[in-house]
């Protein structure tokens, strides 16, 4: 028997079949169980999609949205930048497909009976959104009855005239005629001179000595002995010719000599900090070589046996580097700043993260160095130090290796003691080693591509070896 095509079933679902086609489909569905099942499947699929993707937030929401939309369109019609509702998307929860599938996995699929009204009312939703911001609504689409109520005639919207103003009232103002001045004979009509001030240039007005002024046939109008300041004053339009004579030059020199000395603004004392200079390192002594050799394979026991303090404090101030790695060809030497001024430099306010490195201008400077431990293999990079633990204590070593599921070492994994703010990175062989005060510590291991791992370790007086397996990130 030939089954119905999907076009026939689809058209049947949509009610688009009439006449012979409809009769053919109906007869076939009555006899073919398979096509009937497929018809039911597609019908359920349609209903479910209508149920899931239908959205009817209500009239209030549509009213608000219409107002927002009309505001934007009105602004666009006036050529004004439309207001962006940028917060809208930020406030709305964005549900991605992964979250949907995760929620589907977490939820119980077993159908439950519908709760009673009391139970439903007692269940408070975990997230409260405004009515117009409800992220999802699964109301089924209810077909609206047709025809609807006749639409009320919409009231025409009166155009809003912006910037319409009443014409200003012109009130005649009677200006009284000014009284005639006694010295000037009244003349009609009165002509009021309008004086437009010229822009005044900046001029340096110099005092003119008195004897020169006495010899001057006409005194300079601006000889009121002003202070030597730069002020806005009109330049004299007439320069006396005596200024170019020898006497004038002499007077000018005398005036210049009478000027006060140049005022110097004292420079504030800038704080000075120790200068760090890189100096080529001298050949390493023999004991360090032995230490390096000892640290290759079984370093932990030997180090504890030799009681090498796991703390390095730089006196003399040289940077200490972890053993086992190649020594840097340079070392840092700190030079004490020389204060030529009378006052010591005022300490600058340092950020909180740098408070561990106070400037010590009087004593020998000590570089703050993290507790460095000679690692078993190499590159253990002490990343941070802690301020609440005593770095001078004899800390035990916490060493170990980080492996993946297949047993391969994970290089570059970050090993952290979160409660102490201590950390290190694993080397190529997945090994790490760091020193920490005794006690129960939480060891966190983070690596790219792997899920973070946590392990509680109990540090005693002896070196502790741990092995951590990382699993790929989901």
């Amino acid at each position, binding site marked *: 028997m030939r089954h119905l095509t*999907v076009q026939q079933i689809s058209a049947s679902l949509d009610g688009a079949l009439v006449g012979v086609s409809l009769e053919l489909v109906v007869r076939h569905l009555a006899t073919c169980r398979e096509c009937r099942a497929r018809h039911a499947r597609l019908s359920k699929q349609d209903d479910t999609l209508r149920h*899931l993707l239908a*959205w009817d937030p209500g009239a209030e929401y549509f009213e608000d*949205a219409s107002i927002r939309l009309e505001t934007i369109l009105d602004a666009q*019609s006036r050529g004004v930048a439309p207001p962006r509702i940028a917060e*809208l998307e930020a406030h*709305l929860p964005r549900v991605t*497909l992964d979250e949907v599938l995760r929620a589907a996995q977490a939820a119980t*699929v077993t159908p439950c009976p519908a709760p009673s009204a009391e139970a439903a009312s007692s269940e408070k939703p975990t997230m409260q959104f405004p009515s117009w911001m409800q992220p999802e609504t699964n109301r089924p689409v209810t077909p609206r009855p047709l025809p609807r109520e006749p639409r009320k005639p919409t009231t025409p919207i009166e155009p809003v005239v912006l910037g319409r103003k009443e014409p200003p009232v012109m009130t005649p103002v009677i200006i009284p005629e000014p009284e005639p001045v006694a010295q000037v004979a009244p003349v009609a009509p009165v002509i009021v001179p309008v004086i437009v001030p010229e822009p005044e240039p900046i001029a340096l007005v110099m005092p003119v000595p008195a004897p020169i002024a006495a010899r001057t046939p006409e005194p300079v109008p601006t000889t009121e002995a002003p202070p030597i300041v730069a002020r806005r004053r009109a330049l004299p339009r007439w320069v006396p010719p005596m200024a170019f004579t020898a006497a004038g030059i002499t007077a000018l020199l005398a005036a210049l000599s009478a000027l006060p000395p140049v005022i110097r603004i004292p420079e504030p004392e800038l704080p000075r900090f120790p200068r760090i200079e890189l100096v080529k390192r001298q050949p390493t002594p023999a004991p360090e070589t032995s230490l390096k050799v000892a640290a290759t394979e079984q370093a932990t026991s030997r180090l504890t046996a030799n009681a090498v303090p796991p703390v390095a404090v730089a006196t003399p101030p040289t940077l200490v580097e972890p053993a086992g790695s190649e020594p840097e060809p340079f070392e840092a030497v700190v030079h004490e700043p020389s204060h030529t001024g009378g006052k010591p430099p005022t300490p600058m306010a340092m950020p909180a993260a740098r408070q561990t490195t106070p400037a010590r201008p009087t004593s020998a400077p000590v570089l703050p160095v993290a507790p460095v431990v000679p690692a078993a293999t190499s590159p253990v990079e002490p990343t941070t130090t802690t301020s609440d633990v005593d770095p001078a204590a004899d800390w035990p070593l916490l060493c170990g290796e980080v492996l993946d599921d297949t047993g391969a070492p994970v290089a570059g994994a970050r090993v952290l003691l979160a409660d102490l703010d201590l950390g290190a990175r694993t080397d190529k062989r997945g090994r790490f080693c760091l020193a920490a005060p005794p006690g129960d510590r939480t060891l966190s291991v983070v690596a790219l591509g792997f899920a973070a791992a946590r392990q509680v370790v109990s540090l005693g007086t002896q070196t502790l070896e741990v092995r951590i397996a990382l699993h790929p990130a989901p």
Partner: protein
Amino acid sequence: MDARATQGPWMEHGREAALVLAARRGELPALFELLRAFQLPLWRVCFALTRHRGECELLVQETARRAQKNIKQLPEGQSFLPWVLRLARILALTEARRRAGEPRTAVAALRPDGTRWEDGTRGVIDLAFEQRLLTAFAALSVDEQLLLALRLFERMPYAEIANALEQPLTATMHRIAMVRERLEQPTPGEAAA
């Protein structure tokens, strides 16, 4: 097909033509009335295309802005809704191309605690089926989503859908059937599993 099952807007043709004419002259109140009249189908289609409320509103706003800008290009005597739906389709296509690499947005049927958004009732009859259907719907192209939205959510007749999407009637019928078949088939992930 029963044309009365259409959920579309109801506006007298003469009234709509007059409003379109006024809107073409630049009268904003006429455009506002047109948009309010066709608001519900436009919003439902945009929500089906975006499946996100914020993006849905942004898409509606951008569609309305385009409509205001290009209202003079609307031919006389043509209905307003299909033309606006075509604008929304073009914008959704542009947005889909822009977000080609991003994860698709779907609609969660449940809250994170397992309750429905709508009424807080716990438990779904066939949650896995719903999620599979949402995933398959999100994997459809914009044209296919629009086709299904107009048919399922707006209950538009085939002829109106064909007019709105500017395609032949028979092609519209065939494509709707094909989309239904695609939704019925398992997704590539399910097939691999």
